[in-house]
């Protein structure tokens, strides 16, 4: 797998899916308990190179499956654009699948 992520959204989605399926360790915890903690994660994401997709996945805590007792997933997250299959948080701005999850999830 090349280190340079593809630009085409579908190719990028497949690239991310492969990364997650290959066991990429991401920071699923701690979940941000306060808006300040949420903002600190966003600050970390902003500090990344815009090309650093892997870094974004790690810091945001991406998983390729639902998470937690309530089985939270992108499909219900307010940042998720259902038709584009896209995470619309400016600091993430990546293609996603509805059954994925990250710790910036909110409903």
């Amino acid at each position, binding site marked *: 797998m090349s280190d340079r992520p593809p630009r085409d959204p579908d190719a990028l989605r497949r690239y991310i899916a492969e990364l997650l399926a290959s066991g990429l360790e991401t920071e699923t915890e701690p*979940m941000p308990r*306060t*808006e*300040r903690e*949420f*903002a600190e994660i966003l600050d970390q994401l902003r500090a990344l190179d815009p090309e650093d997709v892997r870094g974004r996945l790690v810091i945001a805590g991406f998983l390729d499956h639902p998470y937690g007792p309530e089985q*939270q997933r992108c*499909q*219900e*997250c*307010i*940042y*998720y*654009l*259902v*038709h*584009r299959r896209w995470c*619309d*948080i*400016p600091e993430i701005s990546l293609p996603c699948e509805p059954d994925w999850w990250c710790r910036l*999830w*909110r*409903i």
Partner: protein
Amino acid sequence: MANLLWLQGGACSGNTMSFLNAEEPSACDLVTDFGINILWHPSLGMELGDNLQRLLRACVSGEIPLDIFVFEGTVVRGPDGTGAWNRFAGRPMKDWVAELAQAAQYVVAIGDCATWGGIPATAPNPTDSTGLQFLKRQKGGFLGADFRSKAGLPVINIPGCPAHPDWVTQILVAVATGRAADIRLDDFQRPKTFFASFTQTGCTRNMHFAYKVSATEFGQRKGCLFYDLGCRGPMTHSPCNRILWNRQSSKTRSGMPCLGCTEPEFPFFDLAPGTVFKTQTVMGVPKDLPEGVDKTGYIKLTVAAKAAAPKWAEEDIFVV
């Protein structure tokens, strides 16, 4: 002819600026068409010094009948209950307010500061500020919970930061033309004609609210501001999207979250860092849900709405 006196306590003059920009009716219309005689106003009054004191004393004594007493800004009680941090016309403003409120047929509080204390009364409230008949959500304020003006009404509260100019002038016209009995007030003494509906009522983003598409940055034309940017439109009583600002727009229409400035708790969360322009959540669920909606219902609604969301809801449909 109805005599109106307007004074300012702990205020930024924002409500005066708003009032002077009124259109339907305008401040001039109040005088020329509706028989309101503006005895004195901080930006319009001619009297200064001894002349102003004489005018105010005449209002207190009844020599000049005071029909409508309008107050803008907080009643400043500090330091130590003296009111000395807000002196006006030779004495603490709070003393004028106490006497003028007793002399007036109607008392109207304009803006958040006069209604419930607003920003100056936010903790730690260094000036010991309060609204005329409320301190935040607690009834009482400076005049006391049982206060009634000579006409038998409590203080008429027109909140907002600032209040919309037309809310102000329309209520003043109603009072001045003998229709005060038609003004129905809610539990916070706000005229129901303006404050029974929500800021969200009439918002152009309602379709995005319905399909759970979030705005993520200020000024975006797509998306609802409630989910991420702290918009309080679904929980705030105001007609901001029914009676537009400058007849053109509103905060939410232009991509700015509603701050909930017509509610007693404004500013929310005592302006703690990270609480302004950010929807407060607990494990991803908003702390403050739209009025009357519980968490279970909210989650069910979200699941259904996301599943049903049409493609256009994700796009900017306001093409220039």
